[in-house]
């Protein structure tokens, strides 16, 4: 009898706890952001000064007001578009070069011996250190910034592509040859799709690095771009604009990484969707 009465109650409470669980994580996440904003607000409101000084830091309210104003005017979009164009160009060039060279280096020993040493030599140099040389090398400001952006994305892409090609299961290549595949078919049907997950990882990392390089380059040399905008805001004492610039960079970077991941998942339907349970 007890089980008969108890069973529906258990089911109902299970349903309730499932509903609670589905609400809990988004709620926790929103709360976490809310608490951060509150702390920021309080710190600027009281002009906290405990070695770290908040007197000159704009409050969340100031930033929001500034953002509304900026996004209502066309001027700010010019900076955004300039940055997006440089990212897109630099990233596209880095993708073509990085994937192309990576496939060659991973596949052919001769290519590895001739092409890889300079890559290894230049890789440890941060892209920002290239800025002076870049300004001297390239005729326009735009091309020199695109160069820096390309450089930043290139290394993670080329290294991950090489890694992907070298990690191809030899047994799959053997299987392909024993099914009648020639060299070109092995490259197309086995090497390329086999290296794809690693290539997408490289693109994803490369996208992040190219944003870092873009913003640094824009801050050092530039007349447009979100990085330039943010740096200039400091110079002309428009402090809320600094934070708007920073947040804009953050959101654009996040969206472009999400785009890479989305395209990657589209290209690789065979990979299991990542289970997030408990993660």
């Amino acid at each position: 009898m007890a089980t008969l009465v108890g069973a529906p109650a258990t089911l109902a409470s299970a349903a309730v706890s499932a509903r609670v669980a589905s609400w809990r994580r988004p709620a926790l996440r929103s709360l976490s952001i809310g608490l951060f904003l509150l702390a920021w607000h309080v710190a600027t409101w009281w002009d906290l000064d405990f070695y770290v000084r908040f007197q000159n830091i704009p409050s969340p309210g100031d930033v929001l007001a500034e953002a509304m104003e900026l996004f209502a005017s066309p001027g700010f979009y010019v900076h955004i578009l300039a940055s997006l164009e440089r990212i897109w160009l630099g990233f596209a060039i880095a993708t073509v070069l990085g994937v192309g060279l990576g496939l060659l280096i991973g596949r052919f020993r001769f290519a590895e011996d001739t092409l890889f040493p300079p890559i290894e030599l230049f890789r440890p140099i941060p892209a920002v250190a290239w800025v002076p040389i870049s300004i001297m090398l390239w005729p326009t400001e735009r091309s020199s910034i695109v160069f820096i952006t390309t450089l930043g994305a290139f290394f993670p892409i080329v290294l991950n592509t090489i890694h992907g090609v070298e990690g191809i299961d030899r047994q799959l290549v053997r299987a392909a040859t024993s099914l009648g595949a020639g060299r070109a078919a092995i490259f197309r049907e086995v090497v390329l799709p086999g290296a794809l997950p690693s290539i997408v990882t490289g693109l994803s990392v490369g996208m992040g690095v190219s944003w870092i390089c873009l913003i640094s380059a824009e801050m050092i040399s530039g007349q447009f771009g979100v990085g330039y905008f943010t740096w200039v805001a400091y110079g002309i004492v428009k402090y809320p604009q600094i934070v708007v610039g920073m947040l804009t960079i953050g959101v654009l970077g996040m969206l472009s990484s999400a785009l890479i991941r989305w395209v990657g998942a589209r290209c690789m339907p065979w990979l299991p969707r990542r289970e997030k349970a408990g993660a």
Partner: protein
Amino acid sequence: MALNGGPTGRVEITDLGIAFGSADRRVEAIRRFTLMTTPGEFVALLGPSGCGKTTVLNAVAGFVQPTVGRVVVDGEAVTQPGADRGMVFQQHSLFPWKTVLANVEFGLKMRGIGPKERTSQARAYLNLVGLAGFERAYPAELSGGMQQRVGIARVLVNRPCVMLMDEPFGALDAQTRLAMQELLLGVWREVRTTVLFVTHDIDEAIFLADRVAVMTARPGQIRDLMPVKLTRPRPAEVIATPEFMALKARVLAQVREESGRAWIEPRL
């Protein structure tokens, strides 16, 4: 559709010797290995681990080149891998990025056969291995036994002279392995191709094969070649018959002796 014509696949392995490594660290895997099959015959290669069973298969597949001797299949010397000598590996050899159907179509695509013809042939072979309805699945979505069935269909669709099987059921659990052995015999009755089957499972070798070749410890050569005189079709219960037991005892004694020898370093 009709799956195959008459049996093909005369494999002639003559005085095969294969050694790996450089001169000072030379490992002799196979020495004076000789084996002839008749077309459509099922031969099991049995031996202690490391005796070079797989090396023999790899030589027939064209993955490794003989140091001495030769491998001839249907009158042609083997110099490189080809679809006439398809290999079923132990596991993880399907293309993970291709669907089941595309995996089976692969060999036909390599031969330049059009998409419609490819699909209909591949479907016929998937039916044969009992995987109709799984065409659009990816390998990772299948169980180990199902993956091996795809592997078999993928080789047979090319109508090879010989199907090479390298411990194809070795990674499966005992229940699945039994089911797969029966399935393989059923398929082989339909598509009569020569089979070279490497295993270290004595029951499996006797249950499946027309002849069982027991190999010596490394460097491997054939120690004994025993015909299996059990009638076909063979029900699973055949392994409990006196004839089966008698042959098994004979094979077991030889394999045990060679396994013991495998632990003793060969005198140089």
